[in-house]
């Protein structure tokens, strides 16, 4: 059972994470190592003006966010996490004008690393726009540890 309330996560993300707020990225479901988010179509996020298709970077942002939620809800208590890597396969263009939905699952948590997979789609989860696998570091230091200064020559 997750120790993190999904509703609180979604609200906190929208309120406190500037980029999530800027995009209006909504958390629609979360819990037990899973998360779902939705992004309304916006013309300012288009990557190809000829077709109106969303830029891949926007999809990266939605997927990175929802993967983070999946990891948080797989943990017993909230800790700082940091994306280590994401591999995103673009399977087909996102349909212009349609909402983008992304769902992530954290399928393995180890002492230091969480493993996730995610997919994004418009209408049908069986016909995804993108598929992703990623890893997250757990318990990243939230404050930079000062490095020892190099010894100066006496």
């Amino acid at each position, binding site marked *: 059972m997750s120790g993190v309330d999904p509703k609180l996560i979604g609200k906190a993300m929208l309120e*406190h*994470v*500037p*980029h*999530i707020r*800027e995009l209006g990225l909504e958390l629609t479901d979360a819990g037990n190592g899973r998360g779902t988010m939705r992004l309304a179509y916006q*013309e*300012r*996020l*288009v*990557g*190809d*003006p*000829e077709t109106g298709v*969303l*830029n*891949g*970077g*926007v999809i*990266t*942002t*939605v*997927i*990175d*966010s929802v993967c983070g939620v999946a990891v948080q809800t797989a943990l017993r208590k909230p800790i*700082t996490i*940091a*994306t*280590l*890597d*994401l*591999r*995103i*396969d*673009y399977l087909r*263009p996102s349909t212009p004008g349609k909402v983008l939905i992304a769902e992530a699952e954290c399928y393995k948590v180890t002492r230091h690393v969480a493993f996730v997979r995610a997919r994004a789609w418009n209408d049908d989860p069986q016909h995804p726009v993108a598929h992703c696998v990623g890893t997250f570091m757990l318990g*990243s230091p*939230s404050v930079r540890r000062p490095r020892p200064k190099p010894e100066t020559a006496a």
Partner: protein
Amino acid sequence: MKLLHAIETARAAGDPDRFVEAIPYFRFLGLKLRETPQGLLCILPGDTKLIGNPLLPALHGGVVGALLEAAGISQLVWQSGLQTVPKTITITVDYLRSARPVETFAQGIVTRQGRRVANVRVEAWQEDRSKPVAAAHAHFLLQ
């Protein structure tokens, strides 16, 4: 056709920012492009709306990924005379350091360009180029 025109005028004027102007999402990020002897330098301004971790604070990982992808696409369009935006097939982003919400740079190298597919490697850094904040490799479909 608008895009083709933008790419052609950008190249003719030696002003890659005209290419940025044609892509809504690049404008949204506030990207700038500069021509350098090593290729196009892609510059993301420090902007609070791009923050993904307000505690550190750090740029959103997706924005860092978007910058790398944009630098790869721009380099490809600029150097190879493409007339459409290349489509990303896959991109792998390695996050190497937390990226603070300050000016961030990215530069891509086209490792191999075939008839249909191009392989591009990109690095992003902040004050110190020798300390990259992220790196990516991507395959793009050319048309």
